[in-house]
């Protein structure tokens, strides 16, 4: 009996020692840190969702300090972000989370904030030179997008196979191109052998053009079973086109979309599933990382691991997309379907 107990305890001890050695930090709650969450600009749904996640983490960590959600107007985004960061430094805030829209122009203000001892973390969009920033919370690995889209196509088209087409944003969008290339690469695997990519068209992220392009695809490819749109504008426009034409039983729509915009199409079967990273989780994770940095529970160096509440463990790593700079990769995608889309749309 004693022996068996020992056996169960050994891995527990090993884990404990292991985690101490590797510096697995579990947040010490209730410490004070006044934090600011700054989106690119106000009035965008995904940023409000990130704020929701940050608020959730704020109350979970019982931070007696304040969490502010401050952003500029779209017309004044760059100057406004710099102004908010400078004012936050003057106010003596303990940390700020920036979805950077000012490129490297925010660097001097970020450096001044750092010099005053403020924690500077970026999320969603980093400081290109990583100068003045301690950590970037990245949403997903762009390569993963290809596999996610291929898997959704396979599930929707079914094992018997069929044709599908991609409705992308514009030929110049580097992220779109990377995602489409990654999907083509993923499709080479034998399990996708029966689904066939027959066309790639561009809707320029304009609703009307995307709508027309979706209809044009049907004329060109009468056997089309699915339109895959890796853009939130394209997917909504394509779904509306199929719904308006009463074709949802024949041609399905999928891709990257916002739950709030897609909920009705998912519930009526036009777009049975689609994917996006969760901005709620991105805000939640950013808050955890910033809280831990601002309360000096982690230092923000490569190799450090910390626990971000319900999301589990994350490790700080070198950012392969920038020369200097550290990142925490959130991942993975959330795939939305009938079961979870309504809850996320709120």
């Amino acid at each position: 009996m004693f022996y068996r107990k020992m056996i169960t305890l050994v891995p527990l001890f090993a884990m404990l020692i292991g985690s101490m050695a590797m510096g697995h930090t579990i947040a010490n709650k209730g410490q004070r840190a006044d934090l600011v969450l700054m989106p690119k600009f106000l009035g965008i749904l995904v940023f409000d969702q990130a704020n929701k996640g940050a608020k959730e983490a704020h109350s979970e960590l019982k931070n007696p300090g304040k969490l502010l959600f401050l952003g500029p107007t779209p017309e004044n985004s760059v100057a406004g972000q710099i102004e908010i960061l400078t004012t936050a430094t003057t106010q003596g805030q303990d940390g700020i989370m920036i979805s950077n829209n000012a490129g490297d122009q925010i660097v001097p203000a970020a450096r001044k904030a750092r010099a005053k001892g403020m924690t500077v973390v970026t999320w969603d969009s980093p400081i290109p030179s990583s100068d003045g920033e301690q950590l970037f919370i990245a949403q997903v690995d762009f390569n993963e997008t290809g596999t996610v889209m291929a898997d959704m196509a396979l599930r929707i088209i079914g094992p018997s196979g069929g044709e599908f087409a991609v409705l992308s944003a514009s030929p110049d969008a580097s992220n779109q191109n990377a995602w489409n290339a990654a999907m083509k690469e993923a499709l080479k695997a034998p399990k996708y052998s029966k689904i066939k990519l027959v066309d790639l068209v561009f809707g320029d992220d304009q609703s009307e053009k995307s709508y027309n392009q979706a209809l044009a695809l049907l004329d060109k490819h009468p056997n089309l079973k699915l339109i895959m749109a890796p853009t939130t504008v394209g997917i909504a426009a394509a779904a509306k086109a199929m719904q308006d034409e009463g074709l949802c039983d024949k041609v399905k729509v999928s891709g990257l979309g916002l739950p709030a915009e897609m909920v009705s199409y998912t519930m009526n079967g036009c777009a049975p599933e689609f994917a996006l990273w969760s901005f709620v989780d991105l805000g939640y994770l950013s808050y955890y990382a910033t809280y831990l940095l601002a309360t000096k529970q982690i230092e923000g160096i490569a190799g450090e691991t910390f626990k971000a509440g319900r999301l589990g463990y994350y490790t700080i790593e070198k950012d392969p997309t920038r020369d200097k700079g550290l990142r925490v990769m959130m991942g993975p995608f959330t795939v939305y379907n009938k079961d979870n889309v309504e809850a996320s749309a709120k």
Partner: protein
Amino acid sequence: MSIILNKLKSWEGFLSLILISVILVNSLNSESFLSIDNQINLFELSVEKIIVALIMVFIILNAEIDLSVASMMGLSACALGWLVDSGTPMILALGLCLLIGAMGGAFNGYWITVFKLPSLVVTLAMLIGFRGLARVLVEDRSIRVFPSWFEALGQQPILGPIPLSIIIFLGLLILAVIILKFTGFGRYVYFIGINQNVALYSGINVSRVKMILFTASGIISALAGILFAARLGAVRGDMGLSFELDIITMVLLGGVSIFGGSGSINGVILSILIVLYLRNGMSLSNITGHIQTGVIGGLLILSVLIPNLQKMIHDFLNQRRKQLQ
């Protein structure tokens, strides 16, 4: 004349009243408002705009407008980035940028004085033109190539806690006051604004005055663009986008008539202080975004409304008095 003077006095009095209340509310709301750091910061964050506002006073007094100032700021900043990026020595690049400013301003002046085109149209075209050129130069990149001494000039204090850009602003402010109040050129500026034809027939070289003003506007906008680039340390095609609206707002709120001929630099200083303090106070109270824009917009509407209301009441009373007599 004495009526105009009285009106001006009362307008400035009104602005002083607003300013004092803004300062009072701000200092009660936040202990950091009066700190030297914050005072320097709030000027530094808008220093390029208030530098350009100084020359805008002259242009609007002259019954003209220059909408291309912010685009010129962007163009000179982007040209600086592009020149340095392609290997031009820093000092030469700075000189070339000021030259671009002078040429751009003179180009505006040429169409306005020689072809008698409305400045609204000419400078609107250049608002688009200069901005387009800036975007062509740097495309969608963010260029960060400046030597550290240049960035330090834009970001570090050089006299006590005061950075170079604020010293330049103060210097230009003194110069503007002297020119406007104590020189013949300053009087021409007012005179042309009141009645261009009378000025012309009085033997004033109207075209020359306007040419000088628009060229100066180009040079000062280019200088502001350079200071902007130094402060941010990097340039992008959208630098200073729509700053012209903030600049014109400050000048009009300061009591300079959009029809020219009346207004003073004192009023504009008061309005600059009101706009900057109001914005800073709202930021310190964590009011950002559209509410901030809305409050400042409301202030501008008031600035147009109140003098008109005053005039209406004045006229109404005069009429009553006449009827009674």
